[in-house]
């Protein structure tokens, strides 16, 4: 593949090329389809790609442009979606057998926003079943491979979304993040991934996992592109009662006016044992870079950090066990042929249709909510969640952002953690508290290990201060652009 190919360009560059008439959306979409045909056999980021539909959207974009109409900077640019985000008449499997033949009857709000911006909504991207996992090994349709090393996982749960961008199959994609499911795979695949503040992006049309934690967010190769995609999908939505009424500035525009360097907090609890040495070295270099830019750094304390994994798994599984009750063998696609009575329809359809991690979490969630255990687990976890939230509130009185590694290790090998739920759960240790506190977080590539695996750093911002967070992330990213390095495939 020629290095001049459009697939190696950022969305921002492609947008300029489309405006200048150097390329058409149909040409760009064809190049993307060819790339998927060439590399996806190895990577398996895509569960489905409706080429005809993608090309029809591209053609419509070119026709608009020829009439002097351009809907937004994303007009004509392909965006892939994690297979939990509804697109009318397209499949939505959530990487589960139970939704094998499901077709969405309506568009998610983010899909509507992308279509209104003229983006080419193309491709259903792989994930851990119902977004439960950290490696994309839990997909009922086979795992996605890390484009930097095909023997290793891409992270998860949005592993298809991160791998598709890393493999240059799409310039942009969307994922969902409940405990790190955007940031951790972004880190493991060497791309940018962002979880916005809870309530910034509508969850309408997202297959729910844990409703009080889930947020949709962007993947891209640069922070600049993430800002562009985020401003397109954000905003209040009456169809999501947890959506927050806030004015959305032009995040990409605000990057052009960099803020004065501020204060970056380094939480001591995040820099303890368990972190890989090469990850630590890259994060240390990142901190040095911020100092060289004039940022002050300050050690801070988030004392409730060690509670975050148990609190998260009690709350997320409780919400999941309740949310996934809808997959009952009655309304959605698959029903067990062995079902003789009403209870059978539920139990047998779910027994056959769910994979092992989904079963594990539904069982754990049902247990935590059950009579006699509710106070000990669920209520106690919600109280501990308050302590985690208050830790951040305290820290943000002193700092503008908190910097941590995104994940404790670079991409791990297939099978390495899949038999041990706790070791898999621990790979989200640095990302989970952000969801519990509802805060925005972004993973930015910060270099490679000696064996060539990407490493990511995470910046956590104040609630609804996406602009500030992106600005701080961009200050580092524009000087390095590690996400622009593409793997050999």
């Amino acid at each position, binding site marked *: 593949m020629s290095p001049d190919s459009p697939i190696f360009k950022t969305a921002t560059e492609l947008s300029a090329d489309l405006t200048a008439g150097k390329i058409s959306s149909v040409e760009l979409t064809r190049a993307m389809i060819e790339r998927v045909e060439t590399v996806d056999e190895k990577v398996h980021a895509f569960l489905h790609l409706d080429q005809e539909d993608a090309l029809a959207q591209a053609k419509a974009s070119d026709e608009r442009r020829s009439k002097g109409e351009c809907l937004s900077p994303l007009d004509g640019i392909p965006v892939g979606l994690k297979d939990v985000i509804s697109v009318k008449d397209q499949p939505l499997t959530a990487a589960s057998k139970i939704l094998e033949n499901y*077709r969405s*009857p309506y568009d998610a709000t983010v899909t509507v926003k992308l279509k209104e911006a003229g983006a080419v909504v193309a491709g259903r991207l792989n994930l851990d079943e119902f977004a439960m996992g950290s490696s994309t090994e839990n997909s009922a349709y086979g795992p996605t491979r890390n484009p930097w090393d095909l023997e290793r996982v891409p992270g998860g749960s949005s592993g298809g979304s991160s791998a598709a961008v890393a493999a240059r199959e799409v310039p942009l994609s969307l994922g969902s993040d409940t405990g790190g499911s955007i940031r951790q795979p972004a880190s493991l695949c060497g791309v940018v991934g962002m979880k916005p503040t*809870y*309530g910034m992006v509508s969850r309408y049309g997202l297959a729910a996992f844990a409703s*009080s934690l889930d947020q949709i967010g962007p993947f891209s190769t640069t922070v600049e592109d993430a800002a562009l995609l985020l401003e397109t999908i954000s905003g209040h939505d*009456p169809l999501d*009662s*947890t959506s*927050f009424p806030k004015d959305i500035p032009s995040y990409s525009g605000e990057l052009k006016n960099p803020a004065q360097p501020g204060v970056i907090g380094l939480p001591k609890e995040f820099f303890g044992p368990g972190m890989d040495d090469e990850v630590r070295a890259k994060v240390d270099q990142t901190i040095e870079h911020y100092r060289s830019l004039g940022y002050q750094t300050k050690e801070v304390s988030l004392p409730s950090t*060690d*509670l975050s*994994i*148990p*609190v998260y*798994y*009690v709350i997320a599984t409780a919400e999941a*066990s309740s949310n996934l*009750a809808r997959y*009952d063998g*009655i*309304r*959605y*696609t*698959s*029903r067990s042929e062995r*079902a003789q*009575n*009403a209870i*059978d*329809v*539920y*139990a*047998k359809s*779910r*027994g056959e249709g*769910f994979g*092992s991690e989904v*079963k*594990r979490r*539904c*069982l754990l969630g*049902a*247990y935590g909510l*059950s009579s006699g255990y509710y106070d000990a*687990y669920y*209520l*106690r976890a*919600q*109280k*501990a*969640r*308050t*302590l985690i*939230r208050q830790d951040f509130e305290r820290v943000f009185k002193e700092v503008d952002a908190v910097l941590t590694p995104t994940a404790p290790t670079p991409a791990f090998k297939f099978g390495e953690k899949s038999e041990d*739920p706790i070791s898999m759960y621990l790979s989200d240790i640095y990302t989970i508290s952000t969801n*519990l*506190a*509802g*805060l925005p977080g972004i993973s930015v590539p910060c270099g490679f290990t000696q064996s060539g695996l990407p490493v990511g750093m995470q910046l956590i911002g104040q*609630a609804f201060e996406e602009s500030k967070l992106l600005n701080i992330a961009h200050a580092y990213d524009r000087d390095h652009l590690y996400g622009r390095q593409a793997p050999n495939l």
Partner: protein
Amino acid sequence: MSEDAPMDIDYVANLARIELSDEEKTTYQRQLGDVLKYFEKLQELEVDGVEPTAHAFPRHNVWDKDESKQGFSATEALKNAPQSRQDQVVVPKVIEE
């Protein structure tokens, strides 16, 4: 939960309405036992007087305008149902003899 009172896997599977094979029961019993042990640090936590957080930024009384909107037709709504007939979902008999 500790080892002397293991999770009653049959009871929980019934609550979750998930049929499990014997092999799955053995595996989950062990794995979830480990997970619950890991959760024990929650029990040691001092939470007296702490308000629970259900949502990071709760919003209350979110109302939509009281006006009718076009919903799905029966055909559209039933398109994903495994069995349907005469604009209705078909299920096994629910009422016992």
